[in-house]
């Protein structure tokens, strides 16, 4: 019964995924979409041997199983329709490369020989572990032990509240809100009141999604909710701090004063410092007995709290070390981005008597949009993964796990507790977050191309 619902949901999602396959007429289009969706849902169900649909498992597993089938259906149909689109473009691409002279006409095996080492390494050390992460996440696996037990989705359901509505409906609703706002913005003409309203509401949609995810994860002392909260707070702090300070300092370093090259080198060098070393340097500065911060506060007669015992101060210290570390990289890219600022508009605005702030707000900021988005993604990647080294040297997740972010928890569960299956399930969650970010990134860059904006 649940299996039937799952397949139907998959087919429906597939039909939806094919809505843009404009080459086909509506009826065959939706039928083909449904077929691909059905296929995707069936493949996923088959891979888990349909374990999520039985009556012997929790209802939450049934619900998640149906949701996964729907997502697989949508993914299969989207992949199929974009493959079709890519195939459709191929003749043009071929003509274009036909025009391009200077390609080698040797044996067919030449390019494959050149690509072979790259492909082998990508398959063995990226694709295979990626697939294995998904299979391991449905098992009970101990590190170093050869035996495994299938546990279906229980590694995941443990991380979630035992309430299907909270898990599926709330996040879906907020995704629908974000998507609807995007559509609204697309329909409205640029600059109109409703366009501006949609633009202001968009961050609220993202906040709603983040809040919905918070309530989706299980609370309590061993719940995943605190890990999620740590990850959001620390990565948001790192990204915001890194980008705001990065832009401000880059703007300052863009002035053509004497010796600017020396200043720039002195501002960019933290790029070469590692995340662990950043952790060590801040470990020293904030040390409760010998650190400089303690000494300064002592001088004012204030007893500065031990950062390893205060939740907010521990998080702040991790964020401060990470911001310091990413600053060099952000300054470097903002300096490159500032080269694209239209100097003639600046000159005109000077003649019109615009203030420095107005120039910055209305001329400089808009032309930095693409680079800001690029930095948002790279800084988020840093805050998700590379931050591990900083935390390991600075707080080790203390106090009471308040600075333990997602990647730190994965290693704690998967390696320290030797519970690979549960660690892999947490990895899958992080993987989904990364995939979501990447798709967002690709869509953004596609938008820019279609609207003909300056990259």
């Amino acid at each position, binding site marked *: 019964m649940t299996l039937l619902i799952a397949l139907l949901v998959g087919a429906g999602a597939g039909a939806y995924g094919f809505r843009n396959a404009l080459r086909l007429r509506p009826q065959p289009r939706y039928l083909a979409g449904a077929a691909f969706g059905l296929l995707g849902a069936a493949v996923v169900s088959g891979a888990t041997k349909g374990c999520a649909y039985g009556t012997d498992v929790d209802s939450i597993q049934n619900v998640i199983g149906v949701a996964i089938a729907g997502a697989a259906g949508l993914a299969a149909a989207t992949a199929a329709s974009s493959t079709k689109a890519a195939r459709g473009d191929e003749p043009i691409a071929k003509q274009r490369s036909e025009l391009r002279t200077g390609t080698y006409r040797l044996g067919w095996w*030449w390019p494959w020989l050149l690509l072979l080492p790259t492909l082998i*390494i990508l398959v063995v*050390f990226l694709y*295979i572990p990626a697939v294995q992460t998904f299979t391991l996440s449905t098992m009970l696996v101990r590190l170093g032990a050869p035996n495994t037990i299938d546990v279906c989705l229980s590694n995941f359901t443990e991380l979630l509240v035992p309430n299907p509505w909270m898990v599926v409906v709330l996040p879906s609703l907020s995704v629908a809100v974000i998507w609807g706002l995007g559509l609204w913005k697309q329909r409205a003409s640029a600059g109109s009141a409703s366009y501006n309203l949609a633009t202001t509401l968009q961050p609220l949609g993202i906040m709603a999604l983040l809040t919905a995810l918070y309530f989706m994860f299980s609370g309590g002392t061993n719940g995943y909710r605190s890990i999620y909260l740590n990850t959001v707070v620390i990565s948001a702090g790192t990204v915001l701090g890194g980008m705001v300070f990065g832009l401000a300092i880059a703007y300052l370093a863009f002035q*053509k004063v004497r010796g600017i090259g020396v200043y720039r080198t002195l501002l960019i060098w933290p*790029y070469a410092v590692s995340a662990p070393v950043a952790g060590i340097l801040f470990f*020293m500065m904030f040390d409760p007995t010998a650190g400089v911060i303690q000494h300064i506060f002592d001088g004012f007669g204030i007893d500065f709290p031990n950062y390893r015992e205060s939740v907010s101060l521990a998080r702040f210290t991790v964020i401060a070390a990470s911001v310091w570390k990413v600053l060099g990289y952000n300054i470097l890219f903002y300096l490159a981005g500032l080269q694209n600022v239209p100097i003639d508009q600046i000159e005109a605005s000077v003649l019109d008597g615009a203030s420095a702030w107005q120039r910055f707000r209305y001329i400089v900021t808009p032309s930095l949009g693409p680079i800001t988005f690029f930095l948002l993604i790279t800084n988020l990647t840093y805050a998700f993964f590379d931050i591990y080294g900083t935390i390991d*040297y600075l707080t080790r997740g203390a106090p009471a796990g308040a600075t333990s972010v997602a990647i730190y928890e994965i290693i704690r569960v998967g390696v320290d507790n030797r519970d*690979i299956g549960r660690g892999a399930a947490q990895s899958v969650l992080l993987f989904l977050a990364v995939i979501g970010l990447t798709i967002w990134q690709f869509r953004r860059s596609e938008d820019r191309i279609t609207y003909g904006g300056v990259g």
Partner: protein
Amino acid sequence: MSFSAGVRKQGIIRGRAWPVHVLLILVTLAIGFPLVYAALISTQGNPDIFAFKLTPGDKLAKHFDDVWVGRSLGRSMWNSTVQSVLITVAKTVLSLAAGLAFVYFRFRGKWLVFFFVLVTLMMPTEVMILALFRLVSSLGWQNTMTALVVPFAASATGAFLFRQHFSNLPSELAEAAQVDGASPIQFLTKVLIPVSWNAIGALAVIQFVYGWNMYLWPVLIISDQKSQVIQVALQNLQGIDVGLTYGPLMLAALLASIPPAIIFILLQKQFMSGFSIGADK
């Protein structure tokens, strides 16, 4: 005309130069502070540190002896050097080969291969690190340089960087090379590499720093101190519970940052121009 030239010369904020200098010096000092402070601590013994002396102490030589001889920091630095150089060379060679195949050959399934490589951009190693750890352990590569290098020898970023770079070169280069009867490998070594030093330099900085600063993977796969890399070996000096060894720890942290800093400064020009090429696209 002279007015606009003035704007160009001074950049975006117009006005006197000295406030800009003051601000820049303040910011430079703020960013440099953790490093300067670490350098100060690395010369002081614990009594000086607790007394918060601002003058350098006389313990630098002793600390160096402690970390270099006592804790064999040199051996870890050597391991990191070998690892970073091998990763940099492997990634550069494989990326050049991939770029050559993507731009100068036509073959069936090219777009599929392209897509296949592109997708790996959204697959960070950290996300699948438990499975990778299990896989590499089952190959019996624990505590080997192979485990530190081979999984990271290919790079989608590098392949796309060179693909982009080569397709912006005039096609006359390839035609001339073919008329002269040069093989693809000769074309790569004699023509493409000499005109690509900026891109190669930019990629080399990124990959060297990436290899040198790698932390999580060696923590997992290397347990033998003899084969450990520098970023993890620093753990031995951080006695949170026992002896407070601030001076040696700071000195070791500084020493660990010197090689990537040298590479960065040496290749700074290539790095910057390689990036401004990338940022235009």
